[in-house]
């Protein structure tokens, strides 16, 4: 501690004022004349002592006030360590993405983080964050070494795909709330695949110092060789295991930084090896292998394709999926009695598509009275808008319970304004054959599940490219305000609508399924559409197959019945735990698949699903980020990193002066107030004496 303006200390001579007033100055009272001393008595000694004692507190306050004011002008300071030691936030980010399971990467990263944490100053705050698919904050900025260490040791490797862009966004958000400079220590394998497409996403704020702790050598070394099962193509649902077109599993084995080698690929069904193949994989290349037929028993089968890679990253040597084998499900087609074309076209398309999973049963509308729609995978109303009341009510209940219905409005819609189930009406009908001849499709929503398959956008796009070639002659016009419009004609007339009712879906096709109102049924695109629509309406797509880690699975509709009418949803994760609480089981709408393995799901309508979840295979490419990009990333962060945060010796270079004059002045103010109060008390006493 010292003072910046020592000359002001001369002002301490002002202490003499209260000393003189209180201690030195004698009571130099002017003698007061009185008529006679006849009634007076002497009282000198007690008066002096009394006076001195009474003003002792006042004297102390006045002396303190003088001292504090002088001290404030002298500008006292204390030496403090500079920002960068105690004031900087030590942020430890541990990459626990799937690729960190390779070799000892994760253990090395953890060890390095523990080492950095051990060198933390006792008064410095630190925070632990993990980086997987998203940032997960394990601790708040705290100084408690024990809590930080236990948080660090509790981190386990995950199955998510790392994303440095998410790190950049998270740190930028954190920097807005934490006003202190941040030392960001990143412990990662610096996987190139984790970099976002846009480098701006990883740019860090100016006051964040990025210190990289790569767990692998990034400079001048070849990437770690790694073989993986890159993808598996297999049916999620299988009706006929003898069908060579459907009953197969095709796997692609990829090598990253690998030499040419022969790998053994095995297919496991429910834990037993079904088949084994030898596969030659070129250097740094890919090769595919097919297992056919897929001999799976009825029900759900847990399948796995595994290679004997013998590399350092064993976790990605297998890919899992599930196959649900069942007899073909029945589909009910309700048509007008005079309509024989739509059963023909629809039945042919259904048989050609949908992996032979469906068998069509067609009835006329008049014959549908006693039919129970719950026995069917989905129901098609082909221009059958006049239904028996009994069947219509059963159908509405069927949809609310989760069933699917495809309604095709042919020429009959023009005569019957009411559309069953939808409780909507046909405003009017466009008969293009009388005006412009035909109308073509102008807009298609290819993101809708009924228009694509398995999330492969490129494939879906290829399947739907023919929509513009279709010719529609007769189209019913309905109000699309409550529906999702999947396709529109060139003049904006809604062609294909999707409406959710309860747990189920209704697809409304504004034209017919025969070749009179349009040429769709004789177009090859019709088969693909029927294939997708059948899977979407049957709802079987989500019951089996495979997903990626961190993907979401829809569990119930958001606009479903009130929660007390809902049934519970049960999920069993790969470890055999039930991750949902009771309240979540009654209200959850979607669930994120966070771990790899088999998830068992029981929906509220009683249907069961078994889904295989695999990590994103981009994690298998262990190629690190090039050094020049790392340098660029470091360069975008703010100040130079603090190289050593060990117990920094308090050298003059590491210390800064923190002025205390403000605190001293505030103390002087408080003393002045106290002095005023005490002095006022004494004056009050004197007035009382008068």
């Amino acid at each position, binding site marked *: 501690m010292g003072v910046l303006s020592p000359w002001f200390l001369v002002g301490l001579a002002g202490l003499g004022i209260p000393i003189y007033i209180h201690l030195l100055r004698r*009571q130099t*009272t002017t003698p007061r004349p*009185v008529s006679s001393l006849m009634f007076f008595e002497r009282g000198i000694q007690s008066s002096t002592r009394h006076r001195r004692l009474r003003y002792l507190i006042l004297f102390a306050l006045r002396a303190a006030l003088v001292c504090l004011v002088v001290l404030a002008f002298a500008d006292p300071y204390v030496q403090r360590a500079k920002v960068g030691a105690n004031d900087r936030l030590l942020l430890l980010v541990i990459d626990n993405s799937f690729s960190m399971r390779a070799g000892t990467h994760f253990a090395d990263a953890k060890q390095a983080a523990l080492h950095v944490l051990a060198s933390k100053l006792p008064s410095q705050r630190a925070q632990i964050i993990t980086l997987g698919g998203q940032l997960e904050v394990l601790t708040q900025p705290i100084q408690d070494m024990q809590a930080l260490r236990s948080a660090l040791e509790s981190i386990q490797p995950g199955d998510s795909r790392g994303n440095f862009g998410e790190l950049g966004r998270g740190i930028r958000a954190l920097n807005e709330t934490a006003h202190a400079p941040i030392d960001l220590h990143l412990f990662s394998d610096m996987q190139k695949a984790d970099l976002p497409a846009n480098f701006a996403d990883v740019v860090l704020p100016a006051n964040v110092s990025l210190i990289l702790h790569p767990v692998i050598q990034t400079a001048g070394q070849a990437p770690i060789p790694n073989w993986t099962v890159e993808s598996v193509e297999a049916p999620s649902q299988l009706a006929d295991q003898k069908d060579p077109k459907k009953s197969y599993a095709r796997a692609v084995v990829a090598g990253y930084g690998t030499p040419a080698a022969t790998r053994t690929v095995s297919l496991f069904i429910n834990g037993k090896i079904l088949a084994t193949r030898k596969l030659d994989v070129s250097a740094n290349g890919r090769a595919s292998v097919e297992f056919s037929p897929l001999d799976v028993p009825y029900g759900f089968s847990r399948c796995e394709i595994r290679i004997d890679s013998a590399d350092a990253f064993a976790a990605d040597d297998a890919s899992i999926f599930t196959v649900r084998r069942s007899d073909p499900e029945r589909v009910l087609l309700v048509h007008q009695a005079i309509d024989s074309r739509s059963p023909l076209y629809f039945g042919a398309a259904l048989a050609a598509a949908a992996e032979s999973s469906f068998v069509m049963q067609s009835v006329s509308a008049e014959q549908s009275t006693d039919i129970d729609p719950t026995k069917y995978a989905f129901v098609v109303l082909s221009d059958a808008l006049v239904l028996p009341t009994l069947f219509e009510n059963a159908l509405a209940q069927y949809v609310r319970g989760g069933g699917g219905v495809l309604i095709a409005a042919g020429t009959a819609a023009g005569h019957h304004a009411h559309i069953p189930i939808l409780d909507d009406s046909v405003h009017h009908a466009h008969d293009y054959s009388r005006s412009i001849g035909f109308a073509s499709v102008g807009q298609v929503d290819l993101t809708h599940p009924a228009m694509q398959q398995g999330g492969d956008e490129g494939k879906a796009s290829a399947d739907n490219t023919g929509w513009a070639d279709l010719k529609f002659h007769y189209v019913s016009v309905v109000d699309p305000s409550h529906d999702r419009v999947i396709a529109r004609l060139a003049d904006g007339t809604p062609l294909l609508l999707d409406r959710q009712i309860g747990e189920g879906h209704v697809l409304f096709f504004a034209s017919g399924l025969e070749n009179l109102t349009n040429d769709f049924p004789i177009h090859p695109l019709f088969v693909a559409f029927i294939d997708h629509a059948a899977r979407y309406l049957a709802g079987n797509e989500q019951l089996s197959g495979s997903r990626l880690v961190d993907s979401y699975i829809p569990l119930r509709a958001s606009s479903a019945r009130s929660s007390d009418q809902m049934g519970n949803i049960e999920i069993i994760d790969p470890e055999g735990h039930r991750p949902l609480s009771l309240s979540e089981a009654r209200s959850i709408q979607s669930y994120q698949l966070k771990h790899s393995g088999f998830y068992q799901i029981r929906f509220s309508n009683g249907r069961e699903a078994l889904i295989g979840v695999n990590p994103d295979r981009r994690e298998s490419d262990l190629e690190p980020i090039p050094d020049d990009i790392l340098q660029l990333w470091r360069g975008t962060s703010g100040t130079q990193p603090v190289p050593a945060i060990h117990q920094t010796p308090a050298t003059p270079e590491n210390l800064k002066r923190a002025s205390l004059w403000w605190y001293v002045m505030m103390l002087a103010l408080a003393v002045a107030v106290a002095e005023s109060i005490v002095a006022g008390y004494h004056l009050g006493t*004197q007035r009382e004496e008068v």
Partner: protein
Amino acid sequence: MMQRFLDPAVLASISSLDLLAKTVVDGFVAGLHRSPDFGFSQEFAEYRAYTPGDDLRHVDWNLFARTERCYLKRYRGETNSQLTILLDASNSMNYTSGQPGFGPPTKMDYSRYLAASLFYLAIHNQRDAAGLIVFDDEVRDYIRPSTRQGQMHRLLSGLERAEPVARTNLAKPLAHFQELLHRRGIAIIISDFYESPESIVRTIEPLRFHGNEVVLFHVLDPKEIRPELRGPAILVDLETDERLEVIPEYARTDYRRKIDHHIEQLRSRTRAAGMDYYLLVTDQPLDSALRDYLAIRGGR
């Protein structure tokens, strides 16, 4: 209005004692109600049967003409009294707690106003003979009681001359008083009476034995009754120059008790001795003193 004229602080601004006395007395008289005791000019009292030797000038001849009886008219005797004021001019009378121009006047000035007002009242209103004795430890000045022309002027001059120079000693001048006061009258003693009540009464009592009406006007400054000390102070006796350091606590408690006891003793003892005692505080108007004088004068 009367209060304003009789306020000692206002009177202090009047330099002429004559004017001062006139102002005080005229203002005071104008404010009085007519009293049956007031006025002692010739008044008819009673008839008395003539006896040989009576002065024939007092025979009521009108009555004799109507009734042929000889009666004498008797009148209320017109008695001119004699007022003698004994003014203490010791140094202690120079005390005032006020500043020059502010606050109450000195006890000496107050006594002068009082004496001048009494003289004016006696001479102009009552036609009494008035005299003055100024004393401290001796008789400093003596003006014989008289009703002659110019007596008022002589008395006021005597008051002007009376300047405190020494300490009080009642015993010594009192011996001369008895020689000087050979005729019965009213003797008014104006002093601060800083002596023991016993010695005061013992000294003044002989005046009473001569048939005088003795009145003690005890003049004190308000701060002598309720002294104010903000802290320990050194006090100087105006008569003896003796110094004494006194603490405020004593002045607040013991002193007040003692001075109150002194006043009470003085009052009770003088009353017991057949004398009248009045305490006059210098910040109070003079009318009470004048009223007391008239009450005594009316009784004679």
